[in-house]
């Protein structure tokens, strides 16, 4: 676990480097006894997003978060994973009984005036997005979240997804020809770094791969990274997975219009 002093030090260095925004992830960030001081340190200098499972919230904690939010000129985003709009669809992915606990957390956040971003992993084919999103929206609207904010994540073929769905096939790597004409600014690793108790890593998904370790301090972790992992393929296909919608910009050079000019 990172200490408050470590986090404050990294925040200071990030500011020197011109950081635009902060994300907190875990594990579960709200299990840390000093998470509120950490968020306060970051919110003093930039916008903050916390990725939480929403199962640790109490009215007191949400009130404290609301005070942090209101004291900062920047946005405090709370992003909560919900992988289905029923226990039957969510719990096999997020754990038994998690559906009800997550809904309870979301309800507390709504009462605290937050507009949490509900993040769902796409465990269905892409062409079902609209129907699935409608299911989530109906559920959330019934809880009083009239215009729910949603973020869909592609499924990374790692960890439990290997068991649930499938792993990457042997040939699923980025090749040089795929990188030709590709704007790497599209990927989070072109402009973002993750810090853990161990040091600086290239991205949150690769944090356990030894070669994703870039050094002890953010100033050492600036080198460009070769997209050598299979998970990089998913980022390549779907864009900066971890960024908020408010921070993503697609490449300007892709998807030329096909067919006849209608004018």
């Amino acid at each position: 676990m990172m200490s408050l002093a470590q986090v404050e030090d990294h925040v200071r260095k990030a500011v020197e480097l011109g950081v635009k925004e902060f994300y907190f992830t875990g594990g579960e960030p709200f299990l840390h006894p000093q998470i509120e001081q950490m968020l306060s340190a970051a919110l003093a200098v930039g916008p903050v997003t916390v990725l939480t499972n929403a199962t640790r919230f109490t009215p007191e904690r949400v009130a404290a978060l609301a005070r942090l939010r209101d004291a900062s000129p920047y946005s405090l985003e709370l992003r909560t994973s919900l992988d289905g709009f029923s226990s039957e669809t969510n719990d096999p992915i997020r754990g038994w009984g998690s559906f009800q606990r997550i809904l309870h957390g979301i309800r507390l956040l709504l009462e605290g005036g937050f507009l949490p971003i509900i993040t769902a992993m796409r465990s269905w084919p892409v062409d079902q997005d609209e129907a699935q999103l409608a299911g989530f929206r109906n559920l959330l609207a019934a809880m009083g979240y009239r215009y729910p904010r949603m973020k869909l994540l592609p499924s990374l073929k790692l960890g439990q997804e290997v068991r649930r769905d499938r792993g990457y096939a042997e040939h699923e790597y980025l090749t040089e020809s795929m990188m030709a004409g590709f704007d790497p600014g599209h990927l989070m690793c072109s402009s973002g770094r993750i810090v853990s108790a161990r040091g600086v890593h290239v991205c949150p998904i690769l944090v356990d791969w030894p070669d994703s370790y870039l050094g002890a301090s953010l100033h050492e972790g600036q080198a460009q990274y070769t997209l050598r992992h299979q998970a990089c393929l998913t980022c390549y296909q779907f864009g900066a997975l971890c960024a908020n919608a408010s921070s993503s910009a697609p490449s300007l050079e892709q998807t030329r219009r096909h067919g006849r000019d209608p004018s």
Partner: protein
Amino acid sequence: MTGQTRIGLFGGVYSNALALRALLQDAGMRGLDRLYCLGDLGAFGPYPDRVCEVLRATGIPVIQGNYDHSLGNGLADCRCGYTDPRDNYFAKLSYDYTFSRTSTGHKCWLAQLPAELRLTIGPWRVLLCHGSPRKTNEFLWETATSDAFLAWLFKRYECDVIVATHTGLPWAREVTVQAGCQAHAAQADGVPRSGWFVNCGAIGRPANDGRTTVIYAVLSLPHTMLRKPEVKFVRLAYDHERFAGEMRAEGLPEEFVQTILTGWWTTCNEILPAKERARGRY
């Protein structure tokens, strides 16, 4: 008493020729020294050729927005960065409408517009861009952009004032650009300099604040560093009811028409950060 230069900055025209004419009139009455357009001429509104005609006739310098880039280069969509299927549905609808009704001549003009303009006005180095100096379609929202990042932009792009429009929501902030950096060094007396970031808003649709007026910025640049630049946001009233009628006549979505008539964004809200989102109705 030294003088100053007052420039009018506007963007996000979104085919709103009525607001554009109101702006030209307003700027004339204020006696502004110059006007600059920061891009996104099409989208959202009807008859996209009209704003191109007006702007080309005036000779106002225009920067290329992501929409102009897409139209000019025949891309499949506007590269606005929407991630939500409903937002994408509306974005595609208005892009296809605008694409099919923008004449080839105007598309060629849009294709060759510059991505940025650099001006030197008195002692000030001014950089005009569409989204951010590093990317035409980067969002720089007021509550999602740190001072540290803005300071980095001023150093990296060697300027004192940056103006953008892309998000369509007006805001301005003065930040301290730390001393000791090579590119944008502290002044000779060692006092750290400031940088001013301005989003000039959009004149094509309201600012999601429940008012039907649209916004542009007037930047006053004193001819001495002893005084600071000043930003004033101007609220423009125009015949928005007539504009709504034109949109309906062209079969544009009622959701867009409601934004014009109520001042609230009805679509494309998913890209807003929490605080900006909480200020809107939807």
